[in-house]
């Protein structure tokens, strides 16, 4: 499957809360086939301080409309600039990059776990699972109720459980403490979010012998395996997050 570099037109910049937004892009060509967990390297124009591309998970794809979405949280100058883009602006991206989440076997009990903006690749994965006859549970954690994003979208693909750190909605605490984890016996967990949260979920999965895949985020130079800057330590040595990942099974990671 070929990687592409091209400029896509922004057809919507939807503000979700004070620091999260969704860029929806339209491609005039037929979109390449993309798999959940893959990402794109996005070029931020116009500033010497945003010299390199930024990697973002593919959040949602609509092949019929030739559109795709990125869920982005403002974290620095690059994402700040992206947040100001408007309908009609062009965005240059290299995609689809990286590996993807593996598909579960039939009848496996599946949980998707996301924290904060790490929920980004899980909507694409949730829809994919739904289309392939799986019925995942989805556990999402946010700082507080105002930070909850895309809740209704996740509701369409499975049962959604929530935690907030302040208890303003859902269970109070972190996703790794949610009661659903002790009530249900999951066979597979797909997880994305802050590293500390993924490690906690990974530890839960190890203790309960659950197959767990996490989508990692590291600083990247190129996104295509040429610079070797985005390494992650694994039992198989240093691997590139961009080409060997971003999805890794926790049994391979040195955590």
């Amino acid at each position: 499957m070929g990687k592409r570099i091209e400029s896509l037109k922004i057809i919507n910049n939807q503000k979700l809360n004070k620091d999260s937004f969704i860029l929806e892009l339209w491609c005039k060509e037929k979109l390449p086939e993309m798999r959940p967990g893959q990402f794109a390297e996005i070029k931020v124009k116009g500033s010497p301080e945003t010299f390199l591309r930024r990697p973002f998970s593919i959040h949602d794809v609509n092949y019929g409309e030739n559109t795709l979405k990125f869920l982005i949280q403002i974290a620095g100058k690059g994402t700040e600039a992206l947040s100001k883009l408007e309908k009609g602006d062009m965005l240059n991206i290299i995609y689809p990059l990286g590996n993807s989440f593996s598909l579960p076997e039939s009848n496996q009990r599946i949980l998707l776990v996301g924290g904060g903006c790490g929920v980004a690749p899980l909507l694409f994965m949730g829809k994919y699972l739904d289309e392939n006859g799986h019925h995942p549970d989805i556990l999402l954690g946010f700082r507080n109720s105002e930070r909850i994003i895309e809740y209704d979208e996740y509701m369409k693909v499975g049962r959604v459980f929530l935690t907030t750190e302040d208890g303003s909605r859902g269970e109070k605490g972190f996703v790794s403490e949610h009661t659903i984890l002790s009530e249900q016996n999951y066979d597979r967990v797909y997880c994305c979010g802050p590293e500390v949260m993924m490690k906690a979920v990974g530890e839960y999965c190890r203790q309960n012998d659950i197959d767990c895949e996490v989508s990692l985020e590291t600083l990247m130079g190129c996104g295509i395996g040429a610079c070797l800057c985005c390494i992650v330590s694994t039992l198989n040595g240093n691997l590139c997050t961009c080409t060997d990942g971003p999805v890794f099974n926790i049994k391979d990671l040195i955590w």
Partner: protein
Amino acid sequence: MVKLGFNIGDLHFKNPVLTASGTFGYGSEFDDFIDISRLGGIIVKGTTLEPREGNPSPRMAETPSGMLNSVGLQNKGIEIFEKQIYPCISKYKTNVIVNINGSYIKDYVALAERINSLSKIPAIELNISCPNVQKGGMTFGTDPASTRSVTKAVRAVYSKKLIVKLTPNVTDIVEFARIAEEEGADSVSLINTLLGMAVDASEMKPSISTVTGGLSGPAVKPVALRMVWQVARAVKIPVIGIGGIMNADDAIEFFLAGASAIQVGTASFIDPRASVKILEGIEQYLERKSFSDISEIVGYINK
């Protein structure tokens, strides 16, 4: 039709656009984006005798108009290179050059001897300028006597084209270029990255694991250009210019200053098609200016 070819001794390159070691993997990473056989040459990843895991994460930091890296020569070693990588890269119809690195002179010699027997590798780039390894690398390139002894030792065992890659982290790079030439180098390439550093103010710690790293990108271009100009006036062997070349105009500046060829590095991270775009832009420039041969503009500002 503009003539774009150049030679290092009797080794012909169809055009003067090469890709810099460590920024182009083994070429195949770019197959989806460009036809690598269009390039004058590719310089594949820094290779060592033994496999190297490289430095811990984080290995990079973005800096204004550039980036710092501290990969630390992660590679699978010469044995895997010979058995697995060489058969793949020798399919490219371009000059495939291997960048070699060692901790001791004997490492460089052993590598050069082994690569000498690989028929599809017409040249090596002797990396005595990597700033991100504790032993070897830049320590050879910043000491005139070491530069002399490593170049001499490799020259004695390597019969094909020897390119010495110079570090900018010296007071007078010309001295090192002259030593390389005196010891039989067929070409010099410059510059490797500039030793630099970044600190994360919010985390209150160095941005990369090794604290210091190599700066590349447009930020280093004026320094690289100055050094290429100085070296090109001082040596007779071809000079390959490297440093922050993002587009054809940047490349042209290096030719005008005296480079016979250029390497595209960090630009390939931002646009994987950068090398081919630069090649096309050089050709258009020469046509626009009514030159028939790129050699007419090499060192033009000195004429």
